[in-house]
């Protein structure tokens, strides 16, 4: 069991401030700011262990829902560490919930306010040449970024001799989803099964 963290209200505030300050920097997804979260939570304050940090990201990506929930998991773990882990009863649950609220509000509030205001404005002026040029111009780039994301995710398994089944599974999924209407949950289930059996 981890030693119990002592977090003052000042500490909770600086936790909020850190995530709020990263919120507006998170262009292209909050995951791009993960290195800075690591610096703050693991290296500087030691509020999270290395393993907690990594598993927060991996779990949020595997679980359903937006990947931004890795931030909620980090807040959850900070709160658990401030209580007495999962064995700490309601105090732990309370602190973990506080961690979720503080970190999620921090990462979501600034960017959501900006996005909502800016896109309202853009929608009201959607017939303006500049807005239409922006949307048309960005279309091919956005497609390229999607393909690049998939590419980088695949290449994060970087030993072809061992990882080729992973590549094959990704390629197969791409084809099936592109060309058919098979429900995606079947494919996710298949991936989990093949992985659990050690075939990919």
């Amino acid at each position, binding site marked *: 069991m981890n030693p119990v963290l002592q977090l003052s209200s000042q500490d909770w505030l600086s936790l909020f401030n850190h995530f709020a300050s990263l919120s507006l920097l998170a262009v292209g997804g909050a995951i791009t700011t993960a290195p800075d979260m690591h610096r703050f939570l693991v290296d500087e304050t030691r509020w999270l262990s290395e393993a907690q940090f990594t598993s*927060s990201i991996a779990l949020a990506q595997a679980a359903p829902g937006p990947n931004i929930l890795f931030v909620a998991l980090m807040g959850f773990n900070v709160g658990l560490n401030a209580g007495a882990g999962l064995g700490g009863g309601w105090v732990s649950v309370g602190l973990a919930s506080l961690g979720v609220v503080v970190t999620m509000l921090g990462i979501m509030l600034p960017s959501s306010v900006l996005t909502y205001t800016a896109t309202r404005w853009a929608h009201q002026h959607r017939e303006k040449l500049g807005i239409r040029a922006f949307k048309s111009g960005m279309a091919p*780039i956005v497609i390229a970024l999607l393909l690049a994301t998939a590419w980088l995710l695949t290449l994060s398994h970087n030993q072809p001799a061992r990882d080729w089944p992973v590549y094959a599974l990704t390629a197969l999924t791409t084809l099936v989803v592109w060309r058919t209407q098979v429900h995606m949950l079947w494919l996710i289930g298949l991936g989990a099964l093949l992985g659990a059996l050690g075939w990919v």
Partner: protein
Amino acid sequence: MPELILLNRPHSKTDIFVSFTLLALQGFGGVLAVVQREMVEKKRWMTNEQFIEDWAVAQIMPGPNVINLSLMIGGRYFGLPGALAGLAGMLAAPMVVVLLVAVAFGGVSDQTWAQGALRGMGAVSAGLIAAVGLKLMSALRSNPMGMPVCVVLATASFVGVGVLRWPLAYVLLATGLVACSWAYLQLARQATQASGTP
């Protein structure tokens, strides 16, 4: 020329909340692929062209892309309450699920099969994202820049981010600036041609 497609629209804020909750809960390894399939192919709230335009904006704005998209879609139909309904749908139920998964996974995280399952699901979710990219390509046909220019811009962005691994912000700034200026010129030219030939 754009063909006429009959589009639906959400009935109510509850419809928005429930729709986004359901699609978020299906989104393993990210929600984008599910959003495209549900919004465009099943519910027909928008066309592929509109989806890619919204997605471009959602991606450029800071904050999580799919969350931005839910704010935009909800806000378009029902203003601020709609945006909040979309946001809440996207986050509330999945947050409960992910916390439960984290607690449950804490017990089995060392097992090889659990690690393997994560690996397999990761491979599938990479494929889902790639498939969305391929599907959206058809939307480029009506792009005012023309297909060849689109292909060049897309290739340049892919190489910058995926192969050379340059920072996203720089690549976006460079290719985006070229693309938007070129699109502006083309649209302006179309506009003068349209007004010149009555």
